[in-house]
């Protein structure tokens, strides 16, 4: 007995009588003997204490002592206690999609607020109520562009996270979609590349800002070229950077997507995360996923509902804009609470703290003999340095000195074996940056 099923023996007897069968097993008599399990060889149950102890032991097998300079699109940010306090309330955690608006107004308003925060950050008109992660969001954006333009060619910057580029290729392998990749030039978006690849068959360009190398760009010229050829512009962005970096809306982009993990969501070994998506008003009926909207009730009071549902699978089935059903609502709530706690000034300052700490780390690291900046383009909180030796080995040797000192770019890009990508969030102190630099100097 787990303690989660409440029936007493009397209950069971009375219920079986009401149903008119002699035993619980009779309820399963419709399943023929030939279809009964050939095996169901699972361990017997354990107590809550035993399971908790076992999993706490596993948690301790992970290295939590490492000071983290690894980013790569997924960042070690500070999470205010109030985010956990609010988001752990059962009224959020143990409810489901707000199909019945009158008893789900809390969720619907929270999602409406989340959509507003995402629109504010990205500078776009409308946002949906969340997608799975930054990669699936980028894929959904590509499909949106293909539907909206009736074209099937996507021109994508190789500065887009390799993980996302690989996901896009996986998802579209059975669809007639042509991907053209534009290699970066000196870790920056190649203008020549984009200007020569965008053509009249292009449905969309896909850009990332900051790109995988941390480089911050103004993609306005590429967006304008895309528009001139009748294509849409999709930009994948890092929300914390938007506290100071030019937004997709300000560059004229049509669809903004990204990974919302940095907005109050723990790293948790890869999920759950938060895919966000925002777009221009004209594209709203092409958007995938849930959307919360404001309306009025019978007495004229303001209230919220899920809206534009004729886009969705439960109505349109095979003609829906996407197959998404469950999304990442609880993570979207965390993001909304995070933004509300930060406020406009706090959020802008958070971006500044990241920027200045990373700039400091840049100076400290490049003062080490043999270490140089990989590229002189502006960066936000992550940058690449060239090391005098293989970055993989350096990272490995730095583990012993309690540092996860960065991501070796050779893992994702050919010919970059000596390059290290270093992320510095607001959590890294001056002391940690200096100690990491001395450790690195010793290892090199």
């Amino acid at each position, binding site marked *: 007995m787990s303690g989660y099923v409440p029936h007493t023996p009397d209950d069971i007897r009375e219920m079986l009588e009401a149903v008119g069968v002699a035993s619980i097993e009779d309820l399963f008599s419709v399943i023929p003997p030939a279809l009964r399990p050939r095996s169901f060889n699972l361990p017997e149950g354990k107590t809550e204490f035993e399971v908790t102890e076992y999993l706490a032991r*596993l948690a301790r097998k992970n290295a939590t002592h490492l000071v*983290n300079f690894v980013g790569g699109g997924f960042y070690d940010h500070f999470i205010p206690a109030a985010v956990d306090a609010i988001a752990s309330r059962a009224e959020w955690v143990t409810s*489901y999609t*707000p199909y019945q608006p009158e008893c789900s107004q809390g969720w619907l308003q929270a999602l409406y607020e989340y959509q507003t925060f995402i629109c504010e950050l990205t500078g776009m008109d409308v946002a949906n109520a969340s997608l799975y992660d930054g990669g699936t969001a980028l894929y959904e954006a590509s499909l949106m562009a293909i539907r909206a333009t009736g074209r099937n060619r996507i021109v994508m910057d190789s500065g887009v996270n390799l993980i996302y580029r690989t996901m896009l290729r996986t998802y579209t392998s059975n669809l007639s979609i042509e991907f053209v990749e534009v290699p970066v030039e000196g870790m920056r978006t190649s203008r020549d590349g984009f200007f020569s690849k965008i053509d009249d068959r292009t449905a969309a360009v896909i850009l990332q800002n900051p790109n995988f190398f941390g480089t911050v760009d103004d993609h306005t010229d590429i967006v304008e070229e895309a528009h001139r050829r009748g294509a849409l512009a999709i930009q994948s962005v890092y929300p914390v950077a938007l506290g100071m970096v030019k937004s997709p809306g300000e560059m004229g982009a049509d669809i903004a997507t990204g990974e919302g993990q940095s907005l109050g969501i723990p790293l948790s070994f890869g999920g759950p995360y938060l895919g966000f998506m925002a777009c221009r008003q004209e594209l709203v009926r092409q958007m995938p996923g849930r959307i919360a909207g404001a309306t009025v009730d019978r007495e004229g009071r303001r209230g919220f509902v899920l*809206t534009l549902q004729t886009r969705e699978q439960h109505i349109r089935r095979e003609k829906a804009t996407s197959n998404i059903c*469950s999304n990442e*609502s609880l993570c979207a709530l965390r993001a909304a609470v995070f933004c509300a706690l930060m406020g406009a000034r706090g959020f802008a*300052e958070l971006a500044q703290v990241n920027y200045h700490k990373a700039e400091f780390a840049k100076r400290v690291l490049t003062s080490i003999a043999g270490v140089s900046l990989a590229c002189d383009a502006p960066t936000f909180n992550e940058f690449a340095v060239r090391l005098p030796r293989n970055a993989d*080995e350096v990272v490995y040797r730095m583990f012993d000195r309690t540092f996860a000192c960065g991501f070796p770019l050779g893992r994702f890009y050919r010919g970059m074996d000596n390059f290290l990508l270093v992320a510095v969030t607001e959590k890294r102190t001056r002391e940690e940056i200096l100690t990491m630099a001395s450790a690195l100097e010793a290892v090199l």
Partner: protein
Amino acid sequence: MVPPSRDVPSAAPLPERVRRRTQLKFPEVSELDVVRHYTGLSRLNFCVDTHFYPLGSCTMKYNPKFAERVASLDGFTRCHPLLPQLMGGGMLAQGCLEVLYELEQLLKEITGMAAFTLQPLAGAHGELTGAMLIAAYHKARGDRRKYVIVPDSSHGTNPASAAIAGYEVVVIPTGRDGSMDIDAYRRSLSPSAAAVMLTCPDTLGLFDDRIAEIARMAHEAGALMYYDGANLNAMLGKCRPGDIGFDVVHLNLHKTFSTPHGGGGPGAGPVGVCEKLVRFLPISRVIRRPDGTFFLNYDYPDSIGYIAPFYGNFGVLLKAFAYILLLGRQGLIEVSERAVLNANYLRQRLKPLYDIAFDRPCMHECVFSAARQARQGVRAIDIAKALIDRGCHPPTVYFPLIVKEALMIEPTETESKETLDAFVEAMAEIARLAETAPSVLRDAPVTTPVRRLDEAKAAREPDLRWRGESMP
């Protein structure tokens, strides 16, 4: 809130041309005001911890608290997902890798499948992954197949997933007894059929005893069998999709394995496959070395590739792992037994009051029709709203699409007889009112912060974000 301090000298500002021009219009309020605002909002939601929530097909069971605590342990939440992809980094994430490896073993045994990927981030994402695996299988055999077969009672995600994977969709009608029309099914099979997607028990809560025959026919036509595991809560220890002959299975861990639904996610939708599809699974896969340590293997040349950024919704997987370990073999069997007992009890008690869609013993859920009440002008939606006034979350309404005025009720195993009896009382009162005072029901709900909302207006004049000077 003040972010961590700038304990470093200031650098030159970011160049003007890449800098943000417009100021963020976020509210500037105290922490108390934020906490009070969201706490206030949270109290407007019905949830499992506060209300009976018999939302059919969604399996809104109790979510154990200890799983939440385990998933919030620092050792898990602070682990960077790129760590095991670095040289020697796998040894720094052995705890996470062990969770993934062991959970996969348990799911294999529960379903009778040869291998699992834990990466799909929700049920529908699992369906898409499954459809891509099916496509990869046929493609590798040089077999170009065009369409996927789904019954008309299926979840909307099934045809939608098949369609975005590049397949056409062929829909099979439901026969008079609530099961798939077998003749129409037979006619739909051809060398162009890639797969048959079924939910078992189906969305009517019925177990089709011809399922093995249906699988045999699909296989003879060279099609694969896809199992939508949304309704696995009825099957634990009673029947395994792998034994029936299903080739691909997705599970909704947020249903059967009791991870919380979180207002619509995050979920997790692991996909299991039979032996001949293992080589197509997404990368990476977690492998145990002879010395008992674990590593990520990316070396699968036939793999469909990456379907998620990393290893799945790890935090969700962890909660399901904790739940399975705690319940164990007997506990899991008991889950299905009590879920089916509760559903049949409600079926029997409600039968005199409402029309039942198909009068057969059900599995974990039962579908009624408000057709009788509709003749008095009371529709399923009115019954749903009247239940809200009586402290119950409504059942799923108007689904499956094949039942007029459908009320799809799934009580789950964690509800007591007292709760079910109270629900029956509420449903009885509503049935009486439908006869005597139908307008009262059409006015429901009256106890909620807002009355019925104008959904047409919401769609006609979309107001999807705050546009005022400051936030709401």
